[in-house]
């Protein structure tokens, strides 16, 4: 899935600051580390390679700092090349309504990502992944919609940790899990149409409380379907510009929500709360339908292309 895009404002500052959130194409994965099942989070990257697809992800962004309104409809697919290496592709259709202007529609840039899940520790429910994300130049509607005319390369590190290894005296905390992602944007052009393209440091975290883990690994509290497969969570996603006149400026959102993870798919919904002036104002929201291709097509599409 994708990091939720902030409004593509016409104003140069907003555009420069909001773009990194669009181009940090995150991985999507549901995965296991020992007893822990990690769902595919919506706003932040997951520390797993997987065979999955988000279709669609519908986002109504908070009102932009310049008053613009943006709605995105996205699709992402992730495929394992080997059990530990995977890639993904993502694209969004966008509708941008500038304040007092005519709405503009079209596709945003094409996102791609190559990942290597290099560490998994089952007993401690720990996993980690490195990767390289890329947003490609001239693959979206550049002039009207603000899609980039430059490519951005973003090396990334993701991790996930479940707390099921806590002592039983802390049973209440054992369903908690945290995933995180860190990345740095390196645009291939330092400016576009007179607007600088800064390097950005992106960081996001998802704080999850798995009712599935509580019910099936800690204490049978009587939850039945669909509640025993629900995972309340809060995601936070930030991007801080480091240079080229924008040093220190940060955009970010906090996204409380709920994911229901079934056998073949999951459904997620989150509110989007901007938390800095440059992030816009008001309330947004995102809903996502996400399919586990490895469960739907276990013998074909859902397997790694190569095994060893």
């Amino acid at each position: 899935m994708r990091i939720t895009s902030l409004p593509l404002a016409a104003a140069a500052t907003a555009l420069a600051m909001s773009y990194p959130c669009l181009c940090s194409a995150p991985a999507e994965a549901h995965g296991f580390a020992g007893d822990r099942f990690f769902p595919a989070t919506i706003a932040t990257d997951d520390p797993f390679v997987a065979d999955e697809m988000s279709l669609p992800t519908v986002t109504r962004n908070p009102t932009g700092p310049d008053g613009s309104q943006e709605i995105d409809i996205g699709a992402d697919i992730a495929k394992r090349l080997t059990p530990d290496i995977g890639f993904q592709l993502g694209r969004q259709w966008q509708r941008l309504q500038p304040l007092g202007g005519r709405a503009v529609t079209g596709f945003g840039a094409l996102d791609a990502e190559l990942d290597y899940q290099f560490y998994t520790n089952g007993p401690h429910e720990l996993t980690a992944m490195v990767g390289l994300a890329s947003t490609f130049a001239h693959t979206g509607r550049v002039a009207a919609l603000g899609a980039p005319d430059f490519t951005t390369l973003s090396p990334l590190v993701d991790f996930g940790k479940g707390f099921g290894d806590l002592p039983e005296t802390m049973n209440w905390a054992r369903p908690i899990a945290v995933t995180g992602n860190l990345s740095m944007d390196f645009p291939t052009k330092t400016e576009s149409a007179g607007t600088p393209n800064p390097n950005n440091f992106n960081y996001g975290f998802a704080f999850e409380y798995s009712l599935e883990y509580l019910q099936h690994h800690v204490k049978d509290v009587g939850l039945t379907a669909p509640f025993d497969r629900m995972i309340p969570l809060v995601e936070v996603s930030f991007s801080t510009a480091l240079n080229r006149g924008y040093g220190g400026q940060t955009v970010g959102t906090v996204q409380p929500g709920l994911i229901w993870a079934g056998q073949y798919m999951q459904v997620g919904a989150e509110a989007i709360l901007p938390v800095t002036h440059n992030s816009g104002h008001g309330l947004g929201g995102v809903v996502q339908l996400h399919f586990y291709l490895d469960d739907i097509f276990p013998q074909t599409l859902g397997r790694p292309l190569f095994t060893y």
Partner: protein
Amino acid sequence: MRRYLLLGLMPAVVCSIWAWPVAAMAHAFLDHTIPTVGGTVTAAPPELRLFFSEPLEPLFSGIEISGTDGQRIAAGKATLDPRDAKQFVLRLPPLGPGHYRVHWHVVSVDTHPTQGDFTFEVRP
């Protein structure tokens, strides 16, 4: 025109995938257990019975039980309930009062592995 075509195709793709799982299997998730996860029983249970969301492959699945001291308790091999391949059963020797930890690892019939741990208590 192309974008409307793509947006029009999206529901069709979603519906196709939605319909496909009828013939598929998936990761086997634990549904519930007897004795219950984290529960307390007043008499030694004769067996552990784990209920899963998917049929299991018994050759690659197992259940182990250990006592409070971490010592594994000798029990037979877990077997599938002959009437329901989603139920995995481990016959138990007589258990004394105390806490017990159960570790299970299963492979669903489409080869997806999952595992888990839970505890229960026998209290006289």
